[in-house]
């Protein structure tokens, strides 16, 4: 559940970022397409990183075993 919610948050951030970039750095249609590609790539990379780390911790096979002195 939390996974889906956060994924939707990433998607929303992506949409907002593309709109902001369109407003601030608008060029011709070719340039806009390039900016859109860059934003989408960045959001997809960031989401993948987060998703991998989140999924790996969902049902862990080992747990933290504290070392001496903690």
């Amino acid at each position, binding site marked *: 559940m939390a996974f889906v919610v956060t994924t939707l948050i990433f998607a929303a951030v992506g949409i907002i970022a593309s709109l902001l970039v369109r407003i601030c750095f608008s060029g011709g249609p070719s340039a806009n*397409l390039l900016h859109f590609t860059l934003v989408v790539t960045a959001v997809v990379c*960031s989401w993948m990183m*987060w998703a991998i780390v989140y999924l790996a911790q969902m049902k862990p096979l080992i747990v933290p075993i504290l070392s001496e002195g903690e």
Partner: protein
Amino acid sequence: MAIDEFLDNLPPMDLMRSEKMTLVQLIIPVESAHRAISYLGELGLVQFRDLNADKSPFQRTFVNQVKRCAEMSRKLRFFKDQISKAGLLSSARPAMQPDIELEELEIQLADHEHELNEMNSNSENLRQSYNELLEFKMVLQEASGFLVSHDNHTVSEERELDENVYSNNSYVETASLLEQDMMRPGRPDQSGLRFVSGIICKSKVLRFERMLFRATRGNMLFNQALADEQIMDPLSTEMVEKVVFVVFFSGEQARTKILKICEAFGANCYPVPEDVTKQRQITREVSLRLADLETTLDAGIRHRNKALTSLSFHLAKWMNMVRREKAVYDTLNMLNFDVTKKCLLGEGWCPIFAKTKVQEALQRATFDSSSQVGIIFHVMDAIESPPTYFRANHFTSPFQEIVDAYGVARYQEANPAVYTVITFPFLFAVMFGDWGHGICLLLGALVLIARESKLSSQKLGSFMEMLFGGRYVLLLMSLFSIYCGLIYNEFFSVPFHIFGGSAYKCRDATCSDAHSVGLVKFRDPYPFGVDPSWRGSRSELPFLNSLKMKMSILLGVAQMNLGIIISYFNARFFASSIDIRYQFVPQIIFLNSLFGYLSLLIIIKWCTGSQADLYHVMIYMFLSPTDALGENQLFWGQRPLQIILLVLALIAVPWMLFPKPFILKKLHTERFQGRSYGILNTSEMDLEVEPDSARSQYHEEFNFSEVFVHQMIHSIEFVLGAVSNTASYLRLWALSLAHSELSTVFYEKVLLLAWGYDNFAVKLIGLAVFAFATAFILLMMETLSAFLHALRLHWVEFQNKFYHGDGYKFKPFSFASLTEDED
């Protein structure tokens, strides 16, 4: 298909493919040629092809002008040298004077050089006389001491009387004693003793004395004294120490020997009169002459410096002008005269969007040079491949340079820089992930960007220049590093609870078995990033290693799939359906049926928490695919699915190997059925086809074995590369582990250790060592290391799926790109 239509209706993306280029031919009448080329140089959008490539530099048309320009730039460099040697600052006064023509400039430069050379030689001569006189003065000073002490006792009283008498006497001889013949080294004494006085470098004195001793068989007396001041040696322009000497000897032969030895050792002999009065008079005269010379020298230097200063105002402008003219003549040398000798023919590449600008510049040139005939400018077809031109702004250009360093894109193939802008800093950050270090990098990048205008006009060292050129790369790298640092939860290796409490707690209130069995997970996973409870625990490394290795595989498979999909778009753009059907499809099937399947298994194992051993699954999928899976079963239907995927992978290999060469052969024979000769070159413009023209004959050979071997190499490379490239992505895990461990060591073993002591000095030293270690090892070395590995992943693993990189870059003739130190 709807997708195809959608894709076709999209506007072309900016940086994705090279700008469309066209081959143009220019026919320029001679009178407007120079002006036309200058205007095109200012515009900077045409790359001329060298039509005279087979001619040596001396056979070309405008070789004289080029020589003149080279001569002028030599003179200008000479002036620059002189200005810097004289220690003047070259300031450029804003050009108030009107622009001057090249011929006028040539004459002016010749005049200035002549004047400067004269001034220099004059001051050379003056300085030489000055040195000689100075040496004479020193010899007089010191040698008089020797001569006085040497005199016989019998004449000592006489001498004293003389001294007193003559020094009180204000009678001064009108004739200067210097005018007399000075080669006689003093009147012969009663004992026949004579002397030679002079001055020699201190370093040679010992050998000199010994040589004299040997030559005169010991019959000499050598007195020496160090001179008061140092003298400037004209050859080495340094100040050297000199020693004044007086050699007493008897006999004429000894004298010749001694003089010859003096000459050999470079000692300057100056005659010193024995008479004290004469000595004083000569000393006075010499001093006067010295003062005169000094004033003359100073005046000369001031005059020269004034001339140099006035030159330095214009120097930069003139150098610029000469450089431009030389470039224009070099370009004119690339053009050809036509038969009538009244026009110049030129060929060049130019982007299609710039055509109107070029035409307008040419029209202006025709108008400005009041030529009757206009310049003809038209496009031609080219067989040769055009240069590649990407219009990158200063944000995307460092990334473009990174890609170009491997190979410039073929004309109109997909540019990996579009994705590299984001994935390169991202992969860097995966290996660097620490948001404390990321903030340090961010500060550095912001400093560079803030002082952009100031630093871009300065001349920087090569390292600083690279760093400054990559400031936007550094900015993105630092931003992604901060993000990945937050995900790995490392701030100088210290975890924080920024996103809430940990998901793990002790099993019971006493935490008794926390050190043996460990904590227990009691709620949802940590919402963002790695749980802070892991840091410092005994099972930290097994957990993180497993996580990072699987992460590397997933990221690698994703990037490689992106590469193959880009190759699909390339095939679609060049309308090569063979490539789509017999290269793209089998490649995607092969990669995904093996490593895509592995990625799927990883995700399923994470989601279900199964204890299946993925190594086992993958290996036995190949070794014994029909065996029962037992406890390695992750989902229903796994065994049949694995068999299907294995079969697909096995089919994909001959699918990408065999059909393509046979189909190419069939297409070739269809195309040239019945024709045994090549394509004829028919065109309207049939006047001399330039030998270097791009419209040369196209060779029509199809070598089947060559094509087949090429395809085989390509397929084997892909199949074996699929395994090795996937494993290569594990460097993401390796470097991020190294970074994290280094960071932990510095934090725990340096900072915490030093902080444990009560002593303030120890704490300070510990802090300093921690700061230095972080700055040099982590921030510099690790940055370079992660940069290099991220670069390798892009250049090899990503780009070998689709990139040919065998194009050449568009280098237009542009004044703006002429660099300072071109000569």
